[in-house]
């Protein structure tokens, strides 16, 4: 069960406002959270708390394939995003980083910015106040990746390299 405060946004939120393109080749991951959602909501990075939930309308994460747009949300402590629909590459980027992209238009309509909602993954239900909304199960391939904690971790298991040290991601100039 996940319970968190909601940050709610509209339709067609694109990856340029989630993580501006000017940061794509020159920022180490340790700096990502500081710029999360920078051109969408400047308060987000300052006030987001671990366990908070991002809620959005249709086509969330459209535009660039840049994975940092999902990673910066994860590094902000958010592991659940509820939207009416997701742009396809963003959906995959969430899954591959262990962030749950849940599709539930009715719940999105019921949620107000700042609400605290709960997500029951076992029964596919989102609780908003007194109401509950069901969302479709994630497919098998997606579930496997989420359960492993992301694509890299799943592949390490599959490739039999789990026992090897996991190098930290660093920049050559660091």
């Amino acid at each position, binding site marked *: 069960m996940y319970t968190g405060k909601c940050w709610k946004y509209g*339709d*067609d939120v*694109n990856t*340029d*406002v989630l993580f*501006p*393109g*000017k940061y*794509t*080749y*020159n920022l180490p991951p340790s700096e990502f959270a500081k710029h999360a959602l*920078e*051109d969408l909501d400047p308060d987000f990075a300052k006030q987001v708390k671990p366990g908070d939930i991002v809620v959005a309308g*249709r*086509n969330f994460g*459209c*535009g*660039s*394939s*840049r*994975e940092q747009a*999902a990673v910066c949300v994860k590094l902000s402590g958010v592991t659940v995003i509820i939207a009416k*629909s997701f*742009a*396809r*590459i963003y959906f*995959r*980027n969430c899954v*591959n*980083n262990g962030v749950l992209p849940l599709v539930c238009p009715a719940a999105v309509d019921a949620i107000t910015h700042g609400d605290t909602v709960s997500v029951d993954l076992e029964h596919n239900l989102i609780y908003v106040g007194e109401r509950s909304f069901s969302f479709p199960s994630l*497919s*098998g*391939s997606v579930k496997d990746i989420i359960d492993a904690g*992301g*694509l*890299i971790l799943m*592949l*390490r298991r599959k*490739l039999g*390299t789990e026992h*090897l040290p*996991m*190098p930290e*991601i*660093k*920049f*050559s*100039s660091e």
Partner: protein
Amino acid sequence: MQTINQNAKTFAEKALARASGNASVSTGQIVDVTPDAVLSHDNTAAIWKLFKQLGVSNVKYPDRLRITLDHAAPAPATQHAQNHAEVRRFVAEQGIKHAFEVGRGICHQVLSEEALVLPGQTILGADSHTTHYGWMGAFGAGVGRSEVAALWATGELWLRVPEAMQIELTGKFRPGVTAKDFCLQLIGNLGADGGLYQSIEFCGQGVAQMSLNDRMTIPNMMAEFGAKNAYLPPDETVFAYLSARLAKRLGGTVENYLPQLQTQAIYADADAAYHSRHHFDLSAFEPMVAQPHRVDNVVPVSQLKGIRVHQAFIGTCTNGRLEDIAAACEVLRGKKVAAGTRLLIIPASSQVLREATTLGYIGDLLDAGAMIGIPSCGPCMGNHMGVPASGEVTISSANRNFKGRMGTRDSEIYLASPAVVAASALAGEICAP
């Protein structure tokens, strides 16, 4: 009522059957595909770091990798230079044959020019505009960085066979109207998520009437429609373009390559189970503009009056090719860019720049007061080479006008065809040629 032919297949079903080694696959099925080509660019160094986390030392199929340095090239700052240096180390260490240096051009243009993707093949890339390769009838889809690391290690990745939308095109564009105008109108009509998750499959005699330049714009822009991939049926014009380039790169004659290209081309069945069908008469379109800050916020250019332009930009994988530069030259030859307006032209590749120089376009554009940039993505995603100031208006031939896209949050971007961008540079305000 239309009878359903169970054996009839969409392009996506046929292409992903081939890519997954299955005799037949159906929409909705999840398949493990082994792409013929895997694209990355300046993000190659970041992908290498993820690859190292997998605990694998060698790329499984190094000859399938396609790498260009284009997104922030030449390097605008030390961090970007370090990034490029790391990409070069990766290329050397892993023996990557198909890697292109700074200045060669934008990935999608370069791989098309080098015929490093072919009809019927599948290419996955860490770039959202990998839909581009639909121009030649290839299956191209964007994926994330972790997924490209996975592809380097294992050669395969899961994909869901997408629903498909059929778009039949008839007729011909009127003079001054381009595929860019068509795409903006389509996205404006059906919305930025109008093709979400879908394979956008074009058909009809309108495709064959179109120049290759126009055909390259369409699948590129379908990324802004939410598409997974897009497809135009390849014809003899496509085969001739690619076989000439294969002959140049690999030796032999054009005739050596034609049969192979014709054989491996994939054609959708007209009676396949399309999710939706649309028809457009190309002669009915007019020059369009996408207004800030959405690609689907579209109006005919004729409706915009008095919008002052500070910067006009012609370039990118969408509209930075020879025909685009020719269209700009047509508008600007013998005239001058308006005072107070800057015109930046960045050819999509070194070949485009070379040909535009030979044909005299570059000289004419310089005489008209344009700046010419080094073949690359330029300021498209705000890294450098034309970042606007706060409050400035840019009109651009690129594909995205999201807030902050070009590096400055409180600036505005309008999208249009190269001819409209050039005319706007000339007038200093948005207008038709």
